[in-house]
């Protein structure tokens, strides 16, 4: 038998196996370390610049040192708030339709449209918002930017709402109906609350996704070196500021871009982690 013979072919096969499997481990290490590299650089270069001035001051005139990004921070907050107001109801109620009322044909079309929107590059969405809300009025506005971001929130919210509503067990619904609740009442008072964790997670993830979007804002909300009162004027936003400052020739702007990047990434990651925790806590709660 082959047991006592040293088999060169077997040796080669086993060495190859060991080498290739180690390589896959290297690949995994590289992939995971990218995140930490990014965070590391942001903290290193931007950490000390995230100071009081950064949060409270307006940008200094071009070429001057100092200043902050107060207007961009507020601008991003306004954009995200309005985007949620636009995108979440559409996604939520659309998802309710798909899960509770929808027929097969209508459901397919709506889902397909949502997938289409999801796969559309954000710059194309920006073009759409521009044509709809900037061109006719001949000026940039917070509203048009929020509209573009809102559209981008719809697909995630829609699909997740549908998914989590469908996951609510049948006996819960039937329990409500048996007690005399109408279908819409049952949805509102029993089904939606049962699915709220998943839906909340989806909304948070959608928010995190659009918080970092720059391209659609470039020609809708545009930018602003000052405050932007109301909703009808162009506004500064964190992502656009990062872009503008990073490609500029001024070192002080570079410093501020790092700080803004750290803030933005921190925000996005925190929302992501919170969203996942919400989901996990929900799953654990159900299991216990």
């Amino acid at each position, binding site marked *: 038998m082959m047991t006592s013979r040293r088999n060169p072919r077997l040796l080669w096969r086993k060495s190859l196996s060991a080498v290739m499997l180690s390589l896959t481990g290297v690949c995994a290490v590289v*992939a995971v370390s990218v995140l930490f590299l990014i965070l590391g650089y942001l903290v290193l270069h931007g950490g000390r610049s995230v100071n009081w001035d950064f949060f409270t001051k307006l940008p200094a005139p071009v070429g001057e040192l100092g200043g902050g990004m107060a207007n961009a921070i507020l601008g991003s907050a306004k954009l995200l708030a309005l985007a949620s107001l636009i995108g979440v109801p559409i996604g939520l*109620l659309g998802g309710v339709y798909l899960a509770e009322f929808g027929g097969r044909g209508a459901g397919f*079309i709506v889902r397909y449209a949502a997938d289409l929107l999801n796969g*559309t*590059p954000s710059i194309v969405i920006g073009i759409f918002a521009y044509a709809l809300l900037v061109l006719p009025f001949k000026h940039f506005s917070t509203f048009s930017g929020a509209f573009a971001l809102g559209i981008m929130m*719809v697909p995630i919210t829609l699909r997740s709402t549908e998914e989590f509503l469908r996951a609510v067990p049948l006996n819960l619904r039937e329990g409500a109906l048996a007690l005399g609740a109408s279908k819409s*009442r049952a949805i509102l008072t029993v089904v939606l609350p049962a699915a709220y964790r998943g839906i909340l997670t989806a909304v948070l993830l959608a928010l995190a996704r659009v918080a970092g979007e720059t391209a659609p804002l470039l020609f809708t909300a545009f930018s602003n070196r000052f405050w932007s009162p109301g909703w009808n004027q162009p506004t500064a936003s964190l992502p656009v500021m990062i872009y503008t400052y990073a490609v500029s020739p001024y070192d002080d702007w570079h410093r501020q871009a790092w700080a803004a990047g750290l803030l933005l990434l921190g925000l996005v990651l925190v929302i992501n982690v919170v969203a996942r925790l919400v989901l996990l806590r929900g799953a654990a709660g159900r299991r216990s």
Partner: protein
Amino acid sequence: MRGAGSSLSPRSLFSRLCQGDEIARLITLLFAASVVLIALAIVYQLWVDSALSRHRFGLHFLVTSVWDPVFEQFGALPFIYGTLLTSAVALLLAVPLGIGAAIFLAELAPQRISAVCTFFIELLAAVPSVIYGLLGVFVLVPLMRQDVQPFLKNTLGFLPLFSGPAYGVGFLTAGIVLALMILPFIISVSREVLLSVPRDQREAALALGSTRWESTWRVVVPFARTGIFGSIFLALARALGETMAVTMVIGNTPQIAASLFAPGYTIAAVIANEFTEATSDLYLHALIELGLVLFLLTFILNGMARLLILLTERKGAEVRA
């Protein structure tokens, strides 16, 4: 509830009862329909608002390489070239790395480590494009200019791919940044597909005397190949549409060059840069036509990706049945 002998006809009673439900149904239908409306509106708008450019240049638009706003000559070729080239570089780098990592996480790593790593990789997918761009500009570009590109020139400079001056920005740098951006997608989808391969496939291979690698590479991965291709298509669709990170490191020069070190341009990048500077209607329409081309490209790729992933799920089900 009124009794059967009420003065109201049964039909209006019925409609009264369903009033709440009917309203709810109509309202939610309206919102669902608005999603379809928006999608249709986007396609419509892209088509209509590129009319001037489409009528002027026709299909030549796709093969002309001149982009001259002053003389109003617009051709999409440099941007299509740049988009495809950077995406190709990105895939070449990200696919082996991504599949390798997915194999490790699905087949080799203990459950806990795999879950933790996957968590971090999914967080990586959430990093905004502009942040990648930021790191690209301040970290990668100098690195490329000072170390990587000279090294490549010294070793492989005889190839046209690695010739020419090394600015740091260019197709290669953009490709590398894109690779990092699409990596998480390839890993998470491939990992899930690999995990769904039935255990007895691997066991059958091991029982025949395969090494761990042989059973993984020759049996498990081929079993999952449709889904893995799906993940690649998805990643490609994302890469095509990436704007910010690319425009910050590609050099923004509309040219077709053989060297990876040369600066270039992509469809998304030129739209981002020149949209607000479009001085004439034709200029604007040309840019929007570029947007239409990009939309069509991603539309087709996403469709193929979804088809492939659907086929994988179906194959898994039919083998299990």
